[in-house]
């Protein structure tokens, strides 16, 4: 079943408290190469049948209206995976 994958990230100018906490924990496990962490969200929308342009457009609209809040977040990627 094909999936449309939507990735949402906090806007770059919005401080990400969760990412900051993760960045603080990494060195404790010996991972010292990472300067910063930002945490996002990944949504997988499964489609029964072919992903048409219309369905993809619906996914993009859903990404902008429900899956993300444009005040604080950006939709950074919408991608179709045929498995």
């Amino acid at each position, binding site marked *: 079943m094909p999936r449309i994958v939507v990735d949402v990230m*906090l806007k770059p*100018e*919005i*401080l990400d*408290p*969760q990412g900051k*906490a993760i960045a603080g924990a990494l060195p404790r496990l010996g991972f010292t190469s990472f300067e910063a962490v930002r945490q996002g969200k990944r949504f997988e929308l499964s489609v029964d049948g072919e992903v048409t342009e219309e369905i993809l457009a619906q996914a993009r609209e859903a990404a902008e209206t*429900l*899956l993300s*809040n444009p*005040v*604080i977040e950006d939709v950074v990627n919408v991608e179709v995976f045929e498995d």
Partner: protein
Amino acid sequence: MSAELPLIGDYSTPSTELSGARIGVVTFPGTLDDRDAARAVRAAGAEAVSLWHADTDLQDVDAVVIPGGFSYGDYLRAGAISRFAPMMAKIADAANSDAKLPVLGICNGFQILTESHLLPGSMIKNDHLKFICRDQLLRVENNQTAWTNGFEAGQEITIVLKNQDGQYVADEKVLDELEAENRIAFSYVGWNPNGSRRSIAGVSNKAGNVVGLMPHPEHAIEAGFGPDHRGTDGLAFFTSVLTHLVGGKK
């Protein structure tokens, strides 16, 4: 429903004129503070009307309170799913109509109002990442709204703050607009408890009929139970809207 008279309270004649107003209190799956909000409405002298999120009948209420809690478990983003409830569509229409239905969003209710774009900005996790519960000192920045006219401008009040996603954020342009248009309704005094931009605790829309804030006025309406076991500063939110409805101060 029988009247819930508090055991300890001041039952002298209220200074504001009572109006027989009907104030709706919305319940979503996961709402926690609807009963306290309804109790606050009754304590102020109005009739509390329960509104269910999936219904579309506003039942001719004169104002609406969207109470706090964790609607839909805060899944996706706090308020993001509730915002699309049928009742919210009705409330948004009525708030934006000429009638300018007064709407107060408390905590999760504030988050629902920002997700609905009835109020600008949004809330993200507290900057210190912890749930916080404390008696919070606030300054009333704008006493010209439907829900704040009973306060003095600049008055300092103490009500309860309890949340995890309480950090108010908006871009600089929006923040400048809010300041210029006197739409910051409340700010935190002293310590900023969650990293909110410009210490904003609550804001209003342009018309002043829609107000949202993170702290909980409905938990500070009764002597014996409010902040420091004495505080009743929250009651003025609910009497303010009655004054507004009977055509008093804006």
